[in-house]
Protein backbone atom coordinates (compact mmCIF):
# COMPACT_ATOMS: atom_id res chain seq x y z
CA UNK A 1 0.00 0.00 0.00
CA UNK A 2 1.24 3.45 -0.81
CA UNK A 3 2.12 5.94 1.90
CA UNK A 4 -0.78 8.20 0.98
CA UNK A 5 -3.36 5.43 1.29
CA UNK A 6 -1.77 4.27 4.55
CA UNK A 7 -2.20 7.81 5.86
CA UNK A 8 -5.87 7.77 4.89
CA UNK A 9 -6.40 4.51 6.80
CA UNK A 10 -4.43 5.83 9.79
CA UNK A 11 -6.52 8.98 9.95
CA UNK A 12 -9.69 6.94 9.59
CA UNK A 13 -8.57 4.75 12.48
CA UNK A 14 -7.73 7.77 14.64
CA UNK A 15 -11.18 9.25 14.02
CA UNK A 16 -12.95 5.86 14.01
CA UNK A 17 -14.27 6.39 10.51
CA UNK A 18 -15.99 3.35 8.93
CA UNK A 19 -13.97 3.78 5.78
CA UNK A 20 -14.86 0.38 4.27
CA UNK A 21 -18.24 -1.35 4.39
CA UNK A 22 -19.45 -4.54 2.78
CA UNK A 23 -23.20 -4.43 2.23
CA UNK A 24 -24.89 -7.64 1.12
CA UNK A 25 -28.05 -6.53 -0.65
CA UNK A 26 -29.58 -10.00 -0.77
CA UNK A 27 -28.86 -13.55 0.33
CA UNK A 28 -30.93 -14.92 -2.54
CA UNK A 29 -28.77 -16.64 -5.11
CA UNK A 30 -29.04 -18.39 -8.43
CA UNK A 31 -26.24 -20.79 -7.54
CA UNK A 32 -26.17 -23.29 -4.70
CA UNK A 33 -22.49 -23.54 -3.95
CA UNK A 34 -21.58 -26.46 -1.78
CA UNK A 35 -19.49 -24.34 0.58
CA UNK A 36 -21.87 -21.38 0.93
CA UNK A 37 -22.53 -20.16 4.47
CA UNK A 38 -25.77 -18.32 3.69
CA UNK A 39 -29.47 -19.07 4.04
CA UNK A 40 -30.79 -18.14 0.59
CA UNK A 41 -34.42 -17.68 1.61
CA UNK A 42 -35.61 -14.08 1.72
CA UNK A 43 -36.54 -13.27 5.30
CA UNK A 44 -37.41 -9.66 4.53
CA UNK A 45 -34.44 -7.99 2.94
CA UNK A 46 -34.01 -4.23 3.04
CA UNK A 47 -36.19 -2.30 0.62
CA UNK A 48 -34.98 0.10 -2.02
CA UNK A 49 -35.79 3.06 0.21
CA UNK A 50 -34.05 1.46 3.18
CA UNK A 51 -30.90 0.79 1.17
CA UNK A 52 -30.80 4.39 -0.03
CA UNK A 53 -31.23 5.65 3.51
CA UNK A 54 -28.43 3.37 4.71
CA UNK A 55 -26.18 4.61 1.91
CA UNK A 56 -26.89 8.19 2.95
CA UNK A 57 -25.97 7.31 6.52
CA UNK A 58 -22.76 5.61 5.42
CA UNK A 59 -21.82 8.59 3.29
CA UNK A 60 -22.35 10.92 6.24
CA UNK A 61 -20.30 8.63 8.46
CA UNK A 62 -17.36 8.76 6.06
CA UNK A 63 -17.54 5.43 4.25
CA UNK A 64 -15.61 5.57 0.99
CA UNK A 65 -15.05 1.93 0.07
CA UNK A 66 -18.36 0.16 -0.52
CA UNK A 67 -18.44 -3.50 -1.47
CA UNK A 68 -21.86 -4.62 -2.72
CA UNK A 69 -22.32 -8.35 -2.52
CA UNK A 70 -24.80 -11.14 -1.84
CA UNK A 71 -26.19 -13.72 -2.52
CA UNK A 72 -26.32 -12.70 -6.13
CA UNK A 73 -26.65 -8.95 -6.55
CA UNK A 74 -28.27 -9.09 -9.94
CA UNK A 75 -31.28 -10.91 -8.50
CA UNK A 76 -32.34 -7.61 -6.97
CA UNK A 77 -34.61 -5.93 -9.47
CA UNK A 78 -33.52 -2.55 -8.11
CA UNK A 79 -29.81 -3.36 -8.40
CA UNK A 80 -29.00 -0.71 -10.99
CA UNK A 81 -31.12 1.86 -9.22
CA UNK A 82 -29.15 1.22 -6.04
CA UNK A 83 -25.82 1.18 -7.84
CA UNK A 84 -26.66 4.48 -9.53
CA UNK A 85 -27.58 5.91 -6.15
CA UNK A 86 -24.36 4.69 -4.56
CA UNK A 87 -22.22 6.15 -7.31
CA UNK A 88 -24.09 9.46 -7.16
CA UNK A 89 -23.04 9.51 -3.49
CA UNK A 90 -19.52 8.99 -4.74
CA UNK A 91 -18.80 5.70 -3.04
CA UNK A 92 -15.88 3.72 -4.40
CA UNK A 93 -17.84 0.65 -5.45
CA UNK A 94 -16.68 -2.92 -5.76
CA UNK A 95 -19.12 -5.64 -6.79
CA UNK A 96 -18.96 -9.32 -5.88
CA UNK A 97 -21.02 -11.50 -8.20
CA UNK A 98 -21.17 -14.87 -9.88
CA UNK A 99 -22.01 -12.86 -13.03
CA UNK A 100 -24.13 -15.55 -14.64
CA UNK A 101 -26.89 -12.98 -15.23
CA UNK A 102 -24.38 -10.48 -16.60
CA UNK A 103 -24.73 -9.75 -20.30
CA UNK A 104 -23.02 -7.13 -22.38
CA UNK A 105 -25.70 -4.56 -21.57
CA UNK A 106 -25.23 -5.01 -17.83
CA UNK A 107 -21.46 -4.88 -18.18
CA UNK A 108 -21.69 -1.60 -20.06
CA UNK A 109 -23.99 -0.08 -17.45
CA UNK A 110 -21.64 -1.10 -14.67
CA UNK A 111 -18.70 0.37 -16.55
CA UNK A 112 -20.56 3.60 -17.25
CA UNK A 113 -21.53 3.99 -13.61
CA UNK A 114 -17.87 4.09 -12.60
CA UNK A 115 -17.55 0.85 -10.64
CA UNK A 116 -13.89 0.39 -9.82
CA UNK A 117 -13.77 -3.40 -9.55
CA UNK A 118 -15.90 -6.46 -10.19
CA UNK A 119 -15.03 -9.69 -8.44
CA UNK A 120 -16.35 -12.87 -10.05
CA UNK A 121 -16.30 -16.26 -8.33
CA UNK A 122 -14.70 -19.02 -10.39
CA UNK A 123 -13.95 -22.36 -8.76
CA UNK A 124 -12.28 -24.23 -11.57
CA UNK A 125 -11.29 -23.89 -15.20
CA UNK A 126 -13.03 -27.25 -15.70
CA UNK A 127 -16.79 -27.00 -16.15
CA UNK A 128 -17.42 -30.36 -14.51
CA UNK A 129 -15.72 -29.16 -11.32
CA UNK A 130 -16.99 -25.57 -11.26
CA UNK A 131 -20.56 -26.51 -12.13
CA UNK A 132 -20.55 -29.31 -9.54
CA UNK A 133 -19.62 -26.75 -6.86
CA UNK A 134 -22.24 -24.19 -7.96
CA UNK A 135 -24.78 -26.93 -8.74
CA UNK A 136 -25.75 -24.98 -11.87
CA UNK A 137 -24.97 -26.68 -15.18
CA UNK A 138 -23.38 -24.25 -17.61
CA UNK A 139 -22.47 -21.75 -14.89
CA UNK A 140 -18.75 -21.69 -15.72
CA UNK A 141 -19.42 -20.85 -19.35
CA UNK A 142 -21.84 -18.09 -18.36
CA UNK A 143 -19.51 -16.58 -15.77
CA UNK A 144 -16.58 -16.65 -18.17
CA UNK A 145 -18.67 -15.02 -20.89
CA UNK A 146 -19.56 -12.26 -18.42
CA UNK A 147 -15.92 -11.76 -17.52
CA UNK A 148 -15.17 -11.27 -21.22
CA UNK A 149 -17.89 -8.60 -21.40
CA UNK A 150 -16.66 -6.85 -18.27
CA UNK A 151 -12.98 -6.96 -19.14
CA UNK A 152 -13.73 -6.12 -22.75
CA UNK A 153 -15.33 -2.89 -21.62
CA UNK A 154 -12.31 -1.96 -19.56
CA UNK A 155 -13.52 -2.95 -16.13
CA UNK A 156 -11.07 -4.14 -13.51
CA UNK A 157 -12.08 -7.76 -12.98
CA UNK A 158 -10.73 -10.08 -10.33
CA UNK A 159 -11.48 -13.78 -10.34
CA UNK A 160 -12.02 -14.98 -6.78
CA UNK A 161 -10.95 -18.60 -6.60
CA UNK A 162 -12.08 -20.13 -3.32
CA UNK A 163 -10.15 -23.31 -2.70
CA UNK A 164 -11.62 -26.38 -1.06
CA UNK A 165 -11.25 -30.13 -1.32
CA UNK A 166 -13.14 -30.58 -4.61
CA UNK A 167 -11.08 -27.98 -6.49
CA UNK A 168 -7.84 -27.86 -4.53
CA UNK A 169 -5.68 -28.78 -7.49
CA UNK A 170 -7.35 -26.53 -10.04
CA UNK A 171 -6.02 -23.12 -9.06
CA UNK A 172 -3.19 -23.21 -11.64
CA UNK A 173 -5.84 -23.74 -14.31
CA UNK A 174 -7.96 -20.90 -12.95
CA UNK A 175 -4.93 -18.63 -12.88
CA UNK A 176 -4.17 -19.56 -16.49
CA UNK A 177 -7.80 -18.87 -17.38
CA UNK A 178 -7.56 -15.46 -15.71
CA UNK A 179 -4.39 -14.69 -17.63
CA UNK A 180 -6.04 -15.65 -20.89
CA UNK A 181 -8.94 -13.33 -20.05
CA UNK A 182 -6.60 -10.52 -19.07
CA UNK A 183 -7.92 -10.31 -15.51
CA UNK A 184 -6.50 -10.81 -12.04
CA UNK A 185 -6.97 -13.87 -9.89
CA UNK A 186 -6.91 -14.30 -6.14
CA UNK A 187 -6.99 -17.58 -4.25
CA UNK A 188 -8.49 -18.06 -0.82
CA UNK A 189 -8.88 -21.27 1.21
CA UNK A 190 -11.30 -19.81 3.75
CA UNK A 191 -14.42 -21.87 4.31
CA UNK A 192 -16.52 -20.59 7.19
CA UNK A 193 -19.34 -22.21 9.14
CA UNK A 194 -22.86 -21.27 8.09
CA UNK A 195 -24.27 -18.14 9.66
CA UNK A 196 -26.66 -20.24 11.73
CA UNK A 197 -23.69 -22.00 13.30
CA UNK A 198 -23.91 -25.19 11.24
CA UNK A 199 -20.33 -26.35 10.81
CA UNK A 200 -20.96 -29.19 8.34
CA UNK A 201 -19.41 -27.32 5.39
CA UNK A 202 -16.15 -26.86 7.26
CA UNK A 203 -15.32 -30.42 6.22
CA UNK A 204 -14.82 -29.00 2.71
CA UNK A 205 -11.71 -27.13 3.82
CA UNK A 206 -8.57 -28.31 2.10
CA UNK A 207 -6.73 -30.93 4.08
CA UNK A 208 -3.16 -30.55 5.25
CA UNK A 209 -1.45 -32.12 2.21
CA UNK A 210 -3.51 -29.92 -0.11
CA UNK A 211 -2.68 -26.76 1.83
CA UNK A 212 0.98 -27.69 2.01
CA UNK A 213 1.02 -28.20 -1.73
CA UNK A 214 -0.23 -24.63 -2.20
CA UNK A 215 2.19 -23.18 0.32
CA UNK A 216 5.12 -24.84 -1.42
CA UNK A 217 4.04 -23.85 -4.93
CA UNK A 218 6.51 -21.21 -6.14
CA UNK A 219 3.92 -19.82 -8.57
CA UNK A 220 1.80 -18.48 -5.71
CA UNK A 221 4.50 -17.83 -3.11
CA UNK A 222 4.09 -14.44 -1.53
CA UNK A 223 0.54 -13.98 -2.74
CA UNK A 224 -2.44 -13.45 -0.48
CA UNK A 225 -2.75 -16.05 2.23
CA UNK A 226 0.45 -17.74 1.05
CA UNK A 227 2.52 -14.74 2.07
CA UNK A 228 4.30 -15.03 5.36
CA UNK A 229 3.12 -12.28 7.68
CA UNK A 230 5.62 -9.73 8.88
CA UNK A 231 7.50 -10.65 12.02
CA UNK A 232 5.70 -9.87 15.23
CA UNK A 233 7.42 -7.30 17.43
CA UNK A 234 6.39 -5.24 20.42
CA UNK A 235 4.59 -2.75 18.24
CA UNK A 236 2.68 -5.49 16.49
CA UNK A 237 1.59 -7.04 19.77
CA UNK A 238 0.03 -3.72 20.70
CA UNK A 239 -1.63 -3.43 17.33
CA UNK A 240 -5.11 -4.34 16.19
CA UNK A 241 -5.83 -7.81 14.84
CA UNK A 242 -7.57 -6.39 11.75
CA UNK A 243 -9.78 -3.55 10.59
CA UNK A 244 -13.08 -5.24 11.57
CA UNK A 245 -15.03 -2.91 13.81
CA UNK A 246 -12.31 -0.26 13.67
CA UNK A 247 -12.48 1.12 10.13
CA UNK A 248 -14.71 -1.52 8.55
CA UNK A 249 -17.95 -3.34 9.10
CA UNK A 250 -20.52 -5.52 7.37
CA UNK A 251 -24.25 -4.97 6.77
CA UNK A 252 -26.60 -7.87 6.04
CA UNK A 253 -29.67 -7.73 3.75
CA UNK A 254 -31.76 -7.46 6.91
CA UNK A 255 -29.96 -4.39 8.18
CA UNK A 256 -27.88 -6.22 10.75
CA UNK A 257 -24.43 -4.83 11.41
CA UNK A 258 -21.49 -7.09 12.15
CA UNK A 259 -17.80 -6.22 12.54
CA UNK A 260 -17.06 -8.13 9.31
CA UNK A 261 -18.71 -10.58 6.95
CA UNK A 262 -16.52 -13.23 8.60
CA UNK A 263 -17.28 -12.00 12.11
CA UNK A 264 -21.02 -12.58 12.69
CA UNK A 265 -21.25 -10.83 16.04
CA UNK A 266 -24.65 -9.06 15.98
CA UNK A 267 -23.89 -5.44 16.82
CA UNK A 268 -27.10 -3.61 15.94
CA UNK A 269 -29.84 -3.33 13.35
CA UNK A 270 -30.41 -0.42 11.01
CA UNK A 271 -34.17 -0.88 11.12
CA UNK A 272 -34.11 0.05 14.79
CA UNK A 273 -31.09 2.33 15.10
CA UNK A 274 -29.17 4.85 13.06
CA UNK A 275 -25.83 3.73 11.69
CA UNK A 276 -23.75 6.19 13.69
CA UNK A 277 -25.46 5.15 16.92
CA UNK A 278 -24.46 1.54 16.27
CA UNK A 279 -21.00 2.35 14.93
CA UNK A 280 -19.97 4.54 17.83
CA UNK A 281 -21.96 3.11 20.73
CA UNK A 282 -22.60 -0.59 20.12
CA UNK A 283 -21.26 -2.56 23.13
CA UNK A 284 -20.33 -5.38 20.76
CA UNK A 285 -18.22 -3.18 18.50
CA UNK A 286 -16.68 -1.52 21.52
CA UNK A 287 -15.74 -4.96 22.81
CA UNK A 288 -14.13 -5.88 19.50
CA UNK A 289 -12.15 -2.64 19.63
CA UNK A 290 -10.52 -3.61 22.91
CA UNK A 291 -8.78 -6.63 21.39
CA UNK A 292 -5.02 -6.29 21.00
CA UNK A 293 -2.68 -9.03 19.87
CA UNK A 294 -0.88 -8.83 23.21
CA UNK A 295 -4.06 -9.69 25.10
CA UNK A 296 -4.82 -12.91 23.25
CA UNK A 297 -4.36 -15.59 25.91
CA UNK A 298 -3.20 -18.38 23.60
CA UNK A 299 -2.00 -16.70 20.44
CA UNK A 300 0.26 -14.02 21.94
CA UNK A 301 2.57 -16.68 23.36
CA UNK A 302 2.34 -19.14 20.48
CA UNK A 303 5.63 -20.00 18.82
CA UNK A 304 3.93 -19.68 15.43
CA UNK A 305 2.67 -16.17 16.02
CA UNK A 306 5.15 -14.92 13.42
CA UNK A 307 3.48 -17.06 10.77
CA UNK A 308 -0.08 -16.40 11.75
CA UNK A 309 -2.89 -14.63 9.97
CA UNK A 310 -5.37 -15.16 12.78
CA UNK A 311 -8.90 -14.01 12.01
CA UNK A 312 -10.85 -12.79 15.07
CA UNK A 313 -14.11 -13.51 13.26
CA UNK A 314 -13.25 -17.15 12.68
CA UNK A 315 -12.11 -17.34 16.31
CA UNK A 316 -15.47 -15.89 17.36
CA UNK A 317 -17.25 -18.56 15.34
CA UNK A 318 -15.24 -21.14 17.28
CA UNK A 319 -16.50 -19.65 20.53
CA UNK A 320 -14.04 -16.95 21.62
CA UNK A 321 -13.09 -13.82 19.72
CA UNK A 322 -9.87 -13.71 21.77
CA UNK A 323 -9.07 -17.33 21.17
CA UNK A 324 -7.30 -19.06 18.31
CA UNK A 325 -9.00 -19.86 15.06
CA UNK A 326 -8.13 -23.45 14.31
CA UNK A 327 -8.15 -22.97 10.53
CA UNK A 328 -5.54 -20.25 10.90
CA UNK A 329 -3.56 -22.41 13.33
CA UNK A 330 -3.47 -25.12 10.66
CA UNK A 331 -2.39 -22.65 8.00
CA UNK A 332 0.27 -21.19 10.26
CA UNK A 333 1.74 -24.61 11.01
CA UNK A 334 1.76 -25.56 7.34
CA UNK A 335 3.18 -22.22 6.26
CA UNK A 336 5.98 -22.72 8.77
CA UNK A 337 6.53 -26.26 7.47
CA UNK A 338 6.63 -25.02 3.91
CA UNK A 339 9.21 -22.40 4.84
CA UNK A 340 11.46 -25.20 6.11
CA UNK A 341 11.41 -27.03 2.83
CA UNK A 342 14.57 -26.77 0.71
CA UNK A 343 14.39 -23.92 -1.74
CA UNK A 344 11.29 -22.47 -0.17
CA UNK A 345 10.73 -18.87 -1.12
CA UNK A 346 10.21 -16.42 1.71
CA UNK A 347 7.82 -13.63 1.10
CA UNK A 348 6.54 -11.27 3.70
CA UNK A 349 3.36 -9.32 3.73
CA UNK A 350 2.45 -6.52 6.05
CA UNK A 351 -0.26 -7.19 8.62
CA UNK A 352 -2.90 -6.06 8.96
CA UNK A 353 -3.41 -5.93 5.24
CA UNK A 354 -5.16 -2.75 4.19
CA UNK A 355 -5.06 -0.46 1.25
CA UNK A 356 -7.33 0.26 -1.59
CA UNK A 357 -9.55 -2.75 -1.03
CA UNK A 358 -8.78 -5.08 -3.88
Amino acid sequence: MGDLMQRVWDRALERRVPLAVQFDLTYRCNERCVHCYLDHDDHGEVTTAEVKDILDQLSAAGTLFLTLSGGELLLRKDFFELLTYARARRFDVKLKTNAILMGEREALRIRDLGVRQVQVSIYSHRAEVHDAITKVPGSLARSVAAIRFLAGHGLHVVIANVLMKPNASDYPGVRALAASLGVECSIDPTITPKMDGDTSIVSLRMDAPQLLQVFTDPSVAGEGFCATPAAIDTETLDSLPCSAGHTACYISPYGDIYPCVQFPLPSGNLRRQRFEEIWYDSPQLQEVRTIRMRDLPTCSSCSLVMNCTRCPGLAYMEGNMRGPSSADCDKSMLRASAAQEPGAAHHHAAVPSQGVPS
Partner: protein
Amino acid sequence: MSDLFIARGERLAARKVAGEMVILSADDSSLFVLNAVGASIWEAADGGTPLETIVDDIICRQYEIDRDTALRDTIEFVKALEAQGVMRTSNGAMVEGGDASSSGEEVR
Protein backbone atom coordinates in the same frame (compact mmCIF):
# COMPACT_ATOMS: atom_id res chain seq x y z
CA MET B 1 -10.99 34.37 -16.21
CA SER B 2 -14.21 35.76 -14.82
CA ASP B 3 -16.33 33.21 -16.66
CA LEU B 4 -14.43 30.12 -15.58
CA PHE B 5 -16.56 27.37 -14.04
CA ILE B 6 -15.34 24.23 -12.33
CA ALA B 7 -16.96 20.83 -11.79
CA ARG B 8 -15.87 17.61 -10.16
CA GLY B 9 -14.74 14.76 -12.36
CA GLU B 10 -17.32 12.05 -12.86
CA ARG B 11 -15.64 8.66 -12.63
CA LEU B 12 -14.35 9.34 -9.17
CA ALA B 13 -15.16 8.30 -5.64
CA ALA B 14 -14.72 10.91 -2.96
CA ARG B 15 -15.26 11.33 0.73
CA LYS B 16 -14.19 13.89 3.27
CA VAL B 17 -12.26 12.13 5.98
CA ALA B 18 -10.90 14.05 8.95
CA GLY B 19 -10.97 17.33 7.05
CA GLU B 20 -9.28 16.04 3.94
CA MET B 21 -10.96 15.08 0.69
CA VAL B 22 -10.00 11.55 -0.37
CA ILE B 23 -10.56 11.01 -4.09
CA LEU B 24 -10.14 7.74 -5.93
CA SER B 25 -10.32 7.12 -9.66
CA ALA B 26 -12.52 4.26 -10.85
CA ASP B 27 -10.41 3.91 -13.98
CA ASP B 28 -6.94 3.43 -12.57
CA SER B 29 -7.29 3.55 -8.76
CA SER B 30 -5.27 6.76 -8.63
CA LEU B 31 -5.56 8.35 -5.21
CA PHE B 32 -5.70 12.06 -4.47
CA VAL B 33 -5.94 13.63 -1.05
CA LEU B 34 -6.86 17.31 -0.91
CA ASN B 35 -6.15 19.41 2.17
CA ALA B 36 -8.79 21.57 3.78
CA VAL B 37 -8.47 24.37 1.21
CA GLY B 38 -8.55 21.93 -1.69
CA ALA B 39 -11.49 20.14 -0.12
CA SER B 40 -13.37 23.44 0.06
CA ILE B 41 -12.75 24.07 -3.62
CA TRP B 42 -13.79 20.51 -4.51
CA GLU B 43 -17.01 20.82 -2.52
CA ALA B 44 -17.85 24.12 -4.18
CA ALA B 45 -17.11 22.85 -7.70
CA ASP B 46 -20.74 22.32 -8.67
CA GLY B 47 -20.31 23.36 -12.27
CA GLY B 48 -22.67 26.28 -11.83
CA THR B 49 -20.77 28.60 -9.53
CA PRO B 50 -18.14 30.83 -11.18
CA LEU B 51 -14.63 30.21 -9.91
CA GLU B 52 -14.27 33.83 -8.90
CA THR B 53 -17.32 33.51 -6.69
CA ILE B 54 -15.82 30.42 -5.08
CA VAL B 55 -12.61 32.31 -4.44
CA ASP B 56 -14.43 35.32 -3.02
CA ASP B 57 -16.95 33.44 -0.93
CA ILE B 58 -14.87 30.56 0.32
CA ILE B 59 -11.15 31.00 -0.08
CA CYS B 60 -10.82 34.69 0.76
CA ARG B 61 -13.45 34.51 3.48
CA GLN B 62 -12.04 31.43 5.22
CA TYR B 63 -8.35 32.02 4.72
CA GLU B 64 -6.26 35.14 5.14
CA ILE B 65 -5.08 35.62 1.59
CA ASP B 66 -5.39 38.47 -0.88
CA ARG B 67 -7.82 38.00 -3.73
CA ASP B 68 -5.35 38.11 -6.63
CA THR B 69 -3.09 35.53 -5.05
CA ALA B 70 -6.04 33.34 -4.12
CA LEU B 71 -7.45 33.48 -7.64
CA ARG B 72 -4.11 32.74 -9.27
CA ASP B 73 -3.35 29.85 -6.91
CA THR B 74 -6.85 28.41 -7.25
CA ILE B 75 -6.70 28.45 -11.04
CA GLU B 76 -3.32 26.75 -10.93
CA PHE B 77 -4.67 24.16 -8.49
CA VAL B 78 -7.77 23.51 -10.57
CA LYS B 79 -5.79 23.17 -13.79
CA ALA B 80 -3.49 20.66 -12.12
CA LEU B 81 -6.50 18.61 -11.02
CA GLU B 82 -8.04 18.91 -14.48
CA ALA B 83 -4.87 17.44 -15.99
CA GLN B 84 -5.40 14.43 -13.70
CA GLY B 85 -9.08 14.08 -14.61
CA VAL B 86 -10.15 15.04 -11.11
CA MET B 87 -11.82 18.30 -12.08
CA ARG B 88 -13.30 19.87 -15.19
CA THR B 89 -13.25 23.50 -16.24
CA SER B 90 -15.35 25.39 -18.72
CA ASN B 91 -16.06 28.92 -19.76
CA GLY B 92 -19.75 28.24 -19.23
CA ALA B 93 -21.81 26.59 -16.54
CA MET B 94 -21.73 22.79 -16.51
CA VAL B 95 -24.07 20.08 -15.32
CA GLU B 96 -22.49 17.64 -12.92
CA GLY B 97 -23.07 13.93 -13.45
CA GLY B 98 -22.77 13.21 -9.76
CA ASP B 99 -24.91 14.61 -7.01
CA ALA B 100 -23.57 17.97 -5.92
CA SER B 101 -24.44 17.11 -2.34
CA SER B 102 -22.55 13.87 -2.49
CA SER B 103 -19.04 15.01 -1.77
CA GLY B 104 -19.41 13.93 1.79
CA GLU B 105 -19.89 15.57 5.09
CA GLU B 106 -17.32 16.35 7.65
CA VAL B 107 -16.49 13.22 9.53
CA ARG B 108 -15.80 13.55 13.18
